[in-house]
């Protein structure tokens, strides 16, 4: 199998969430001395992009995305040890969590998964996250972005509080603030002065990359 066919097969197996097949094909790339970097970007990431598209079009839902994510990770586990770290761009770092008072985390997790699969370095704070924690963690890891999710109207204001606290501490310009979740809208985003809003995980990744000049 030539390189291009191999990458296509990897993407295809990933989209069909054939975990073992993805791992086997990844082994095959190693045997053929194909660079791990290429396998990741041309095979695995391409596959996950397709998964994101299928999700956006409501062909795939939560279970399918989670299964594909497992297949992605299986492939990554095989090639990662052979990855020449110097070949990589410095990854964009993001801190993500569900704001205090809210425990709905399915949407946030999908954003984490698709961002992770697009090369972001993701720090997940989980759900019902105390507001100051977002800033603390971002400072600690030197994050580029702070991403907040909420599905409840009753907890939306937490996002604004985080932005205000960033301002108080003169940190506002240091981070891009991304927000999302059911009741969030572009209007709300503008109103509280966040940098970006997206209404699904797949467009969130696309827009985040654009925002960071990595489109």
């Amino acid at each position, binding site marked *: 199998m030539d390189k291009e066919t191999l990458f296509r097969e990897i993407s295809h197996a990933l989209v069909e969430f054939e975990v073992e097949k993805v791992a086997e094909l990844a082994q095959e790339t190693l045997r053929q001395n194909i660079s791990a970097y290429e396998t990741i970007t041309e095979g695995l990431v391409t596959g996950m992009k397709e998964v994101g598209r299928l999700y956006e079009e*409501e062909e795939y*839902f*939560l279970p399918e995305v989670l299964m594909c994510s497992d297949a992605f990770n299986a492939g990554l586990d095989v090639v990662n040890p052979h990855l020449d770290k110097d070949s990589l761009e410095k990854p964009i770092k993001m801190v993500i969590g569900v704001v205090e*008072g809210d*425990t709905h985390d*399915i949407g946030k997790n999908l954003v984490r998964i698709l961002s992770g699969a697009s090369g972001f370095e993701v720090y997940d704070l989980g759900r019902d996250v105390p507001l100051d924690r977002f800033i603390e963690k971002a400072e600690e890891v030197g994050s580029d972005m702070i991403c907040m999710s909420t599905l409840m109207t009753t907890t939306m204001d937490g996002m604004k509080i985080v932005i205000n606290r960033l301002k108080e501490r003169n940190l506002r310009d240091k981070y891009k603030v991304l927000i999302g979740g059911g009741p969030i809208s572009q209007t709300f985003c503008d109103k509280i002065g966040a940098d970006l809003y997206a209404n699904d995980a797949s467009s969130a990744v696309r827009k985040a990359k654009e925002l960071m000049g990595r489109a």
Partner: protein
Amino acid sequence: MLIREDILTPKERMMALLTGKPLDRIICMPIVTTNTAQLIGKTVKEFQLDGKVMADAHIAGFKKFGYDLIYLFTNCSCIAEAMGAELVYSENEPAGCDVPVINSREDLSKIKVAEKNDGQLPVYYDALEILNKEVGDQVFIAVCFSGPVSTAATLRGVEAFAKDTYADPELCHTLLRMATDSCKNFIREIVSYGAMPIILEPIASGSIFSPKMFDKIAFPYIKELVDLAHELKALIPLHICGKTHKIIDKMTDTGADVISIDQCDLAIAREKVAGRALILGNIDPANELLFGPVEDIHKVCIEAIDTMKGYTPAFVLATGCETSNKVPMEHIQAMLDVARSHGLYEYTAEETK
């Protein structure tokens, strides 16, 4: 807005609907639940754990608004709790399950099929007993609880459960089976108090699973609950929040008597349910109803009534989901005001005789 006082009691109105007699106005039941606790100065926690508080709170809510159904509901995890899950209770938030009990097949020994007196289920019976005595002659009472999918997913953790649908269907169906049997035990008990069981399935929502998966993991089990209620001669609504436009026909195929919807266009619902069930919905409790102003609430309620005009067997003006603690009481009143003005039917008292 010209408001006419009700002619029928909520119970008479519902009976009129069920027996094909004329009604004085549209049936209206904003989903007012735990937020009634504030009317009597109690916390959400007290409401969830004490049947007397639950009943007193609901009596206060009913006296204040005179809506057409008393809707008992605490949280999405009460059946899971009765099966063995541990919930976290906080003063003013509904209880939830932080850590799933089932992390592997071995953990199945940690749960069981819930019997009628497990977990906090008896709180409902205490409340029902009081409510039947105090207001049972005026209004019907319902108990809403999470169905098989939402219960199984709570026991297992939503994401692990979602993966099991492909990776370990056997575990998935074992949990669904146990959850279904637990729900059945609860339904029998609810019906024995003369109350109406309402199936709630937030996790079977079209926002989370594909319609194909709904067929596999939700439909057969929900149908079993509907069939049981019908055997017991009870009506049973099915409520699914989130998106439902792609599964609303399947929801109706379960045989549920009332299809209760949240984010689904009423015109689509009307076409797909097509007279096979009552439609209940779908004023967003987290938008107009929360923020107001009252004029906007009037507007969306009037639009809903107009879209559903002439729909048989009936359209019930309701919220798409429960009204939270933060929804101002005047906003709930605004909904009932629309029912008592724009939602009026021509009616003369003699017609009942």
